[in-house]
């Protein structure tokens, strides 16, 4: 690899969305030689064939130990070393582990060239986690809306209330019992199931 060419980066990640987010970030930053491997069955053979300068892997990936072995004994590939080997930069190591990402770097690659890549990986992994979190929250909110609507329907039918009155009843009960309206709605659904 020459000093000006883009290092060859391999992303090992079973999450296609996260890998895409990372890949896009790297491309935007000018790293054009990026390959994503999602298939763990042929992981080692693919890495041998690609001979990358940097391997990025997510920490939820059980294949990380297989990578370590490959880098320990391999005579076929240049020996990449783990990013955590550099003890001088404890903060960025901590940041990477917190973000759930690890990287292996071929010996000889200059630190100032690696740092921006690792920082980018960390920030993209964190961005993905945030996105995932928001998605989960939206899903939960939608789920709760459905439960509340069904509970409203039951109250309207059983007690002859309008939609507005049913909602007010649930809300006031929730406030009185110091519970969330979703929880009250869920108990109405459960009770009506039991009483069927």
């Amino acid at each position, binding site marked *: 690899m020459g000093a000006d060419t883009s290092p060859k980066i391999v992303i090992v990640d079973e999450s296609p969305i996260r890998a895409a987010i990372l890949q896009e970030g790297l491309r935007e930053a000018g790293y054009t030689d990026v390959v994503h491997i999602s298939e763990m069955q042929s992981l*080692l053979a693919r890495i041998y064939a690609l001979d990358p300068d940097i391997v990025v892997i997510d920490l939820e990936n059980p294949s990380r130990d297989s990578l*370590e072995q490959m880098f320990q*004994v391999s005579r076929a590939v240049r020996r990449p070393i783990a990013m*955590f080997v550099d003890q001088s930069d404890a903060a960025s*190591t901590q940041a990477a582990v917190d973000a759930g990402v690890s990287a292996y770097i071929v010996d000889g690659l200059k630190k100032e060239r690696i740092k921006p890549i690792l920082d980018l990986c960390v920030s993209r992994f964190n961005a993905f986690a945030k996105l995932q979190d928001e998605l989960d929250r939206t899903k939960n909110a939608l789920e709760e809306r459905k439960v509340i609507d069904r509970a409203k329907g039951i109250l309207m039918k059983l007690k002859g209330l309008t939609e507005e009155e049913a909602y007010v009843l649930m809300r006031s009960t929730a406030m009185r019992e110091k519970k969330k309206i979703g929880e009250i709605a869920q108990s109405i659904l459960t009770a009506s199931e039991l009483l069927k």
Partner: protein
Amino acid sequence: MTSQLHVGFIPLVDAAALIVAVDKGFTAAEGLDVTLVREVSWSNIRDKLNIGLFDAAHLLAPVAIASSLGIGHVKVPIAAPINLGINGNAITVSPALHAAIMAEIDGDRFDPMATARALARVVASRRKSGADPLTFAMTFPFSTHNYQLRFWMAAGGVDPDEDVRLVVLPPPFMAETLASGQIDAFCVGAPWNAIAVDRGVGHILHFVADILVRAAEKVLAVRQSWAERHPETVAALVRATQRGADFVEQNRAETARVLAQPEWIGVDAEVIRRSLDGRLKISPDGTIRECGRYLLIGREGAERPEPVQAAWLYAQMVRWGQTAVSPDALKTAMGVFRPDLYDAALGRGRATQSSLGPFAAFTGPVFDPADLAGYLRSFAIARR
């Protein structure tokens, strides 16, 4: 005051003492608020212990030594105040390789020298016929599994780096990878050998107790600097773990039930029970083999970390070229195992290595750390 601790573990039967200690409230009784964190790789455990995200961990004994020496990774001195397991691994082979070895065997099938020589003949005839080399899987470069496999096959004349392929696989993938034909054999801890046999995809060829009488398998690992700063917490953790180890031996049915829960190991309690009892189905046809030393957790002094065990593991690292031999490194390796911390916490005289007989494998000289060079010279196949 309650200490909050994060402790990493891999779902394996030899994490039992630790899991039981938390599940049964032994850690809480010591004033420890322990959160056990299940991990998917030894690399994660090592890194999180190294940087302080974990206060302690269920760790491969050789990783504790490699970390302390800075071999293959960052140098972070580790202390092991208590063993979590002695032995417990087994070598499982595919039905095809099993048949090939049995066709070549000259001697008892539980004699590792006989199977290793038979393996050498299988390897030679495969080479002659132009077949691919056999592939053996194990769990980590710095693992007892790696050293046990190498020790065994090299005794029969098979060079583990030249004559076969050695790969690393996560334990839960072993059985299916064997079934798919991508590997021919593996060495892994409980319960994964039993699971391969149950699925009809493998035969257990050896318990590792056939190879070496006592191999330190997993330790409770803490950073040495942390142990120095928190001696009372270490002692409390050792006491709770010891209670866990005692519980495991006295209540195997309950232990198996606890470990079977999805948040711990998440496999059938009956399979776990077999590993605890050392009574394993070794063939899909239902053949049972019993061994009192299959896995030692809370008996025969297994819990007390003996420096000679660390020295043996260090010798294997040297034999296979993972590190160069040095008297200082040997001393550092032995210093990872801390019987002093164990004794300080428990204040009772448990069995020591010397009372358990010589430290010997099925072949080669009795291991003596004082003559490491002589020991290493005795092996024909080595990378040193």
